């Protein structure tokens, strides 16, 4: 039932990290640094290519931060995460194309659809043990892709193209790559922040409790099933919005973009970055999506490299490359005046 964490494999550390680098990385600073870099990048190079690469990377970061909620926080291995992106992208594409709406206005529908998808996939499967869940999600991922490929409403194999841009009000045409890029960065950073905050909340803790020991969590009055479902739904929403940005970015959606490989890549970003650690995941996502562009010769067999990397990282750091460190501030003043909890006023 429960999964016993082998402590010997995990990086053992008493007291918070000391090395300057890791302290920098633990600090709030890193987030701002990355954001600043993202915002300044276009002033260095605004060629369609670099903008395209950077936008793709930003969307990838959004996906990774979404999957991190499911895999990192809640410990549910989802091998079909890209399906949520597919649902989002197709919903947005179909609606905006058939009603000539800017993509922005399709977001409510996208939210509904992705949450629905999350429920449909999650509800029956979340009672399964983790490894069954992995395969089932993979199955759902493939089903989604094949279905999109076979139906005519999704444009069949050639998919949907010529999708209208996100928004168009007078001068501001979001189809301009630079504008789209900044919009993407804005949205993505907001959602990354949101999921990071979720992780540090009552719900986020509940997710971690479930990940660490379902029985103990259950015994503390946590409805593990509901909590898992919530993780799934949040993951789905993140993925769905990723899909909308994807559609806006490519102005086309086709089934080949949602193969298992894509799910695996997002998973790698989460794992390599460090499960549950939002900063790590962001950097992992950047590495995974940018490295192939930077090192062309590496691109040729990057999947081999990623595969080996996965094994190595798991063998040496089962928590991920740069796991969420369980440290927090000690109590400032040694003794607090006992709050009025001693009496048993229940809840």
């Amino acid at each position, binding site marked *: *039932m*429960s*999964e*016993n*964490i*082998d402590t010997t*494999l995990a990086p053992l550390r008493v007291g918070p990290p000391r090395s300057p680098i890791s302290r920098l990385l633990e600090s709030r600073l890193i987030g701002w640094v990355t954001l600043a870099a993202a915002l300044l990048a276009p002033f260095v190079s605004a060629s369609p290519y670099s903008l395209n690469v950077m936008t793709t990377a930003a969307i990838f970061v959004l996906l990774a931060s979404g999957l991190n909620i499911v*895999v990192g926080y809640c*410990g549910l*291995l989802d*091998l079909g995460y890209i399906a949520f992106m597919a649902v989002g992208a197709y919903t947005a594409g179909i609606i905006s194309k058939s009603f000539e709406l800017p993509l922005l206005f399709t977001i409510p529908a996208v939210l509904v659809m992705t949450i629905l998808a999350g429920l449909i996939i999650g509800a*029956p*499967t979340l*009672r*399964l*043990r*983790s*490894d*069954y869940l*992995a*395969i*089932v999600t*993979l*199955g*759902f991922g*493939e*089903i989604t892709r*094949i*279905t999109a*490929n*076979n139906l005519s409403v999704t444009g069949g194999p050639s998919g949907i193209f010529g999708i209208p841009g996100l928004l168009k009000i007078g001068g501001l045409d979001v189809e301009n790559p630079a504008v789209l890029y900044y919009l993407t960065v804005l949205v993505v950073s907001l959602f990354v922040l949101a999921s990071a905050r979720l992780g540090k909340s009552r719900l986020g803790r509940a997710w971690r409790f479930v990940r660490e020991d379902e*029985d103990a969590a259950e015994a503390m009055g946590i409805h593990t099933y509901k909590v898992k479902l919530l993780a799934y739904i949040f993951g789905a929403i993140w993925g769905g919005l990723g899909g909308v940005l994807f559609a806006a970015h490519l102005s086309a959606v086709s089934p080949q973009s949602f193969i*298992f490989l894509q799910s*695996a890549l997002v*998973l790698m970003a989460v*794992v390599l970055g460090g*499960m549950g650690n939002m900063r790590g995941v962001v950097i992992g996502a950047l590495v995974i999506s940018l490295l192939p562009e930077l090192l062309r010769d590496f691109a040729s*067999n990057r*999947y*081999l490299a*990623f*595969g*080996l*990397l*996965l*094994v190595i990282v*798991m*063998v040496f750091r*089962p*928590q991920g490359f740069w796991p969420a460190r369980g440290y927090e501030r000690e109590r400032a003043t040694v003794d607090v005046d006992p709050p009025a909890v001693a009496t048993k006023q229940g809840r």
Partner: protein
Amino acid sequence: MTQLIWDGLFVGSFYALIALGYSMVYGIIKLLNFAHGDIYMLGAFIGFALLTSMGGIPASLSLGALLIVLLVSMLITGGAGVLIERLAYRPLRGAPRLAVLISAVGVSFSLEYGIAAIAGPNPRAYPIRLEGGVFEVLGARVSLPQIVLMLIAAGLMVALNFYIQKTSTGRAMRSIALDTNASLLMGINVNAVITRTFFIGSALAGAAGVMAGAYYGKIDFLMGFIIGLKAFTAAVIGGIGNIKGAMLGGLVLGFVEAFGSEWFGGQWRDVFSFAVLILFLTLRPTGILGERVTERM
């Protein structure tokens, strides 16, 4: 109709061969060996390499040659399986299940794209082709190669079943499946047994790979992905961790697919079999033959 059944049976025997490996490994260390399908692929490519190195083989000898190649490939894939367990799974015993699963995904990727890097990404045509007489059985066209392959598959499964039921190692496997720690206390060399399990499972998958290559005539580095999932489905249908169940599941899935694609059309076949998998996992996770065990704290 009889054709349908026969085709289902034939494909099913491939699924069964691969499902066995899944089931054995899962039964013993509760690991979902995600890379197992790629061992099948590996087997096909090793057979390919061996056959090409042998040079031109007259069709008359092709069956004999195939049998030799089959054995050698089984040995090699078996070794590969053992190696994988050593490097990627054993260090993670006792680690969170999540970690082992991800490691398995990593292995799967490494195998697929490793082969792609070595043998090139393009599909290869198999050097030998099993041709043979075809005759009608109750209105179904049955070809000699099909019968031979199914006989080989059946032989392997019977041998395995005997091994599990009668030999001491088999007994050890079953006891580990029941309770690893207890078996450890009983002085069973758990690691040795797990190694054997991986060897056998991988060897069977490798055999399936060579047979598929020789029968269908085309191999590529992703051929293991889908069939791996199908095999897992078969294992689940039969009751994962249950050897007979794996065989049964393979055949059942073969039928189910044959009928499914008859009704819904070929392009929906995978959707159909995945749906079956999901239904089984959610409604009857113990499969047809698997017995329910109460988990104790």
